C-alpha cells in the first residue's frame, strides 16, 4: 500500500479534477473529457509498450490510429451493393494482382542470390506492378466513386456491429506494423522516428485519397453505435422514470405541474446524453482495465524481463541468445495493435470517420508528450499521462483565458494587446504542452510516475 501511495495520490487528484469539471462546467463536458482520456490512455499504453518496454521509438501513431478508424468504417457500414456490382470485380482483380506481385517478389528473393540485378529486378517488378494495378483498377474505381457520390461512392463495409472493429483495428494496425517493422526497425533511434513519421503520413495520404475504400475527405458519418441513441432514450419510459427518481428532490420543489413537466423534459434531454457517454465510459473502461492487466502481467513475466534486458543492453541480450530482431518486431506489432484498438474506439465514440482530421500534432506528438510526462516504462504512469495531458489540452483554453483576464484586469477591454491575446487563447495549449514537456524532461526525466521494477 505504502509504496503505491504516489500512484493512488496522482490518480485521486486526476479524478477530483474531472469531478470538478463536472460540478463547475457540466457533466457532459466532464464525461467527454473522461472518455477521451480513456482512449488516450489506450494509445499511450501502446506507445509505452514500444518505448518504455523495448526502447523503440514510434512516431507513426497517427497512422495506426487512422487504420483503426478505417477498421471501424469497414466493419460497421452496410455494404453498398450497387458499388460492388459497378466495380467490385475490378477491385478484387487488383487485390489478386497485389498478391501475385508479393508472391513473385518472395520467389525472386528466395530463388536468387543477393546481387544488384536482383535488387533492380525487384524494383522493376514493383514499378510495373503498380502501373498495371493502376491502369486495371482505374475504371472500377471510377465506377464505384460515381455511385451516388453525395451519399456513398465507396464500397461500404460488412455491416457488422462496430464493437468487432476494435479487434479488426488491432489486426490492421498490427499488419501495418509488421511491414514497417520489417523495413525500418534496423535504423538508429532518431531515424526510426523520422521513418515511422513519414510512413504514417503515407498511410494518411492513402486513406485520404482512395475514395473507393474510405470515402476520403468526404468523411463517413452516422456510424452504428454500441450505445443507445439519445432520441430513443428520451422516449423510453424506464429512462424517464430513472431521471425522475434521480432528480426527485429538485423536481418536488416545483409546484406547478406544467412547469415540473417542462423541467423534467429538460433533465431527460441532458440526462440522455450523459447516459450515452456513461455507456461509452463503461466500454472503454473495460478495455483499459483488460489491457492494463495484460500489460502488467507481461511486464513482470520472463518475457518482460527479457524486453528490459534488450532495451538496456542490446548486445548483451544478443550474446545471451535472445533474438533481438524478432523481439523488436513482436513488440512493435503489439504496441501498434493497441494503438489500432484506440483508433477504432475513437471513431466508435465520435460516430464519424474524418480522414482529414488525422494530423501528426494531435495523434503523434501529443501522445508522445503523454508517454513522457506520465512516465515511460510504467503502465500506470502512461495511463496517468494520457489523463493529465488530455485534460490540460482541453482545459488549457479556459485556464489561459482566466489567467489573461486576471493579469490584464487593469487594462481596458478595448486595448489591442489584450484583445489579441484573448483572440489567440486556443493556441496557449501548444505553449502549455511544450513547456510541460520541457520542464518534465529537465527536472523529472522519468515522468510523473517513474518506472519501478520490483524483483519478485
Amino acid at each position, binding site marked *: 500500500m505504502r509504496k503505491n501511495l504516489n500512484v493512488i495520490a496522482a490518480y485521486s487528484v486526476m479524478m477530483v479534477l474531472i469531478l470538478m469539471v463536472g460540478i463547475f462546467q457540466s457533466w457532459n463536458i466532464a464525461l467527454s473529457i473522461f472518455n477521451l482520456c480513456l482512449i488516450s490512455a489506450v494509445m499511450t499504453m501502446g506507445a509505452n509498450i514500444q518505448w518504455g518496454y523495448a526502447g523503440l521509438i514510434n512516431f507513426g501513431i497517427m497512422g495506426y490510429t487512422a487504420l483503426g478508424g478505417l477498421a471501424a468504417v469497414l466493419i460497421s457500414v452496410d455494404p453498398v451493393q450497387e458499388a460492388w456490382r459497378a466495380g467490385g470485380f475490378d477491385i478484387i482483380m487488383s487485390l489478386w494482382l497485389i498478391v501475385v506481385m508479393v508472391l513473385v517478389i518472395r520467389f525472386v528473393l528466395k530463388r536468387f542470390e543477393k546481387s544488384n540485378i536482383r535488387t533492380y529486378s525487384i524494383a522493376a517488378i514493383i514499378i510495373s506492378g503498380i502501373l498495371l494495378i493502376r491502369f486495371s483498377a482505374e475504371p472500377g474505381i471510377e465506377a464505384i466513386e460515381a455511385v451516388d457520390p453525395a451519399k456513398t461512392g465507396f464500397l461500404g463495409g460488412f455491416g457488422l456491429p462496430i464493437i468487432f472493429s476494435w479487434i479488426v483495428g488491432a489486426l490492421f494496425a498490427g499488419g501495418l506494423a509488421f511491414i514497417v517493422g520489417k523495413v525500418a526497425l534496423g535504423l538508429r533511434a532518431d531515424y526510426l522516428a523520422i521513418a515511422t513519421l513519414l510512413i504514417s503520413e503515407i498511410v494518411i495520404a492513402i486513406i485520404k485519397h482512395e475514395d473507393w475504400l474510405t470515402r476520403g475527405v468526404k468523411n463517413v458519418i452516422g456510424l452504428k453505435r454500441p450505445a443507445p441513441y439519445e432520441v430513443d432514450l428520451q422516449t423510453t419510459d424506464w429512462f424517464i422514470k430513472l431521471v425522475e427518481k434521480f432528480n426527485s428532490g429538485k423536481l418536488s420543489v416545483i409546484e406547478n405541474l406544467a412547469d415540473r413537466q417542462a423541467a423534467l423534459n429538460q433533465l431527460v434531454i441532458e440526462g440522455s446524453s450523459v447516459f450515452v457517454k456513461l455507456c461509452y465510459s463503461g466500454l472503454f473502461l473495460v478495455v483499459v482495465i483488460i489491457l492494463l492487466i495484460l500489460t502488467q502481467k507481461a511486464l513482470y513475466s520472463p518475457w518482460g524481463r527479457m524486453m528490459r534486458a534488450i532495451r538496456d543492453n542490446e548486445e548483451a541480450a544478443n550474446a545471451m541468445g535472445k533474438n533481438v530482431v524478432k523481439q523488436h518486431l513482436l513488440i512493435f506489432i503489439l504496441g501498434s495493435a493497441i494503438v489500432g484498438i484506440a483508433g477504432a474506439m475513437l471513431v466508435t465514440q465520435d460516430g464519424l470517420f474524418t480522414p482529414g482530421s488525422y494530423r501528426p500534432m494531435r495523434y503523434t506528438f501529443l501522445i508522445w508528450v503523454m508517454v513522457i510526462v506520465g512516465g515511460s516504462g510504467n503502465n500506470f504512469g502512461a495511463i496517468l499521462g494520457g489523463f493529465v495531458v488530455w485534460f490540460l489540452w482541453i482545459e488549457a483554453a479556459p485556464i489561459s483565458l482566466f489567467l489573461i483576464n486576471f493579469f490584464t484586469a487593469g487594462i481596458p477591454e478595448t486595448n489591442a494587446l489584450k484583445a489579441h491575446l484573448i483572440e489567440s487563447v486556443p493556441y496557449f*495549449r501548444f505553449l502549455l504542452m511544450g513547456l510541460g514537456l520541457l520542464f518534465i524532461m529537465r527536472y523529472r526525466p522519468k515522468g510523473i510516475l517513474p518506472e519501478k521494477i520490483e524483483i519478485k
Partner: protein
Amino acid sequence: MDFVNAIILLLNYIFIPALTYGSQLALGAIFVTLIYGILRFANFATGDMMSFGTMMTILFTWYFQSLGVSLGVLPTALLAIPFGIIFMIFYMLLIDKFVFKYYRNQKSPPVQFAMVSIGVMFVTQAVVRIIIGPGDRRFFDGEKFIIKAREFKEMTGLNEGLALKSTQVITIFVTIVLVSLLFWFLNRTKTGKSMKAYSDNEDLALLSGIDPKKIVLVTWVIAGILATIGGALYGLDKSFKPFTYFNNMLPIFAAAIVGGIGNPFGAFLGGYVIAFSEILLTYAYKKFFMYILPESMEPSSLVQLLSTDYKFAVSFSILVIVLIYRPSGIFKGKVL
C-alpha cells in the same frame, strides 16, 4: 515547332517550379543537416523555426510598408529578411541556452534531444500562432512576373507560354549565392574547417584546441540565416501559413536524409532530388505527348503516374527506399 512547344511545356510546368521548390527545400535540408552533424540531433522543430523566422520577416515587411519604404519592383520582404534573421538567431540562441545546452553538457543520447526538440516545436508553434495567428498570409509586393505567359507567346509565336515569376528567379538566385557563400565558408575559412572537424570527430577536435562554444554559436547563426531565408522565400513564392511550415518539415527531412545526413552538399542536392521526383511523378504528361507523338498515337488518358494527391507520399517513399538500400544516403553522409 511542336518539339519546342513540348520543351517549353516541361520548362514551365516541371523544370522551373521544381527548381524553385527544390531550392527552398535545399535551404531547409542544409539547416537540418548542420544541426544533425554538429549538434548531433534530429531537430523536429525545423519547420516551426522556419516559420518563426518568416513571421519576423513578415512583421518587418509590414513595418516597412507602413513607413512607405519599398524596393520598387522587388518585394519589400527582401529588405526585411536581415532583420528577421537577427531575431531568428536571437531566438535560437535563447532556446539553445535554456534548453539544448543542458542536454549537451549531460551528453544525452540523440533520442532525448529529439524529444526535447518536440517540446521546442510545441512552444515555437504556440509563439508563432499567438503573435501572427494561424491564418494564411501573403506578403509579396512589387512586380509579380518577369515574363508573362501571354507576352511570351506573342514574342515567340509558340502555342505554349512560359511564365517566369519574379519570386522564382529571386529564390533560385538567392539560393545559389547563399549556398556558394556557405560552402566557401565551410571549406575555406578556419572556422568552417573547425566546424567540419568537430562534426567528424568531437574528441579529436576538442583536443586540437577547437572551442566548442564558438562552434555551437556559429552553427546556430548559420542555421538562423538558412531557416529565415528558406522560410521567407517559400512564403514569398507561395504563402505563409504556420501549419504548412510544420508540414514542410517532412520533405525537408527526406531531402536531408536522401542526400546523406551530416553532409551539407548532399542535403543541397537532396532538396532537388525530392522536388523533381515529386513533380515529375505527379505531372500529367498528356499534353507533352500530344506535342511529340504523331496524332494517331495520342494518349487518351492523362498519362499521370500518380495523382497529385500523393505528392508528399512520393518524397516519403523515396526516403524509405533510400533508408533500406543506402542508409548513408545517396551522397554518403554519416552511416545511420
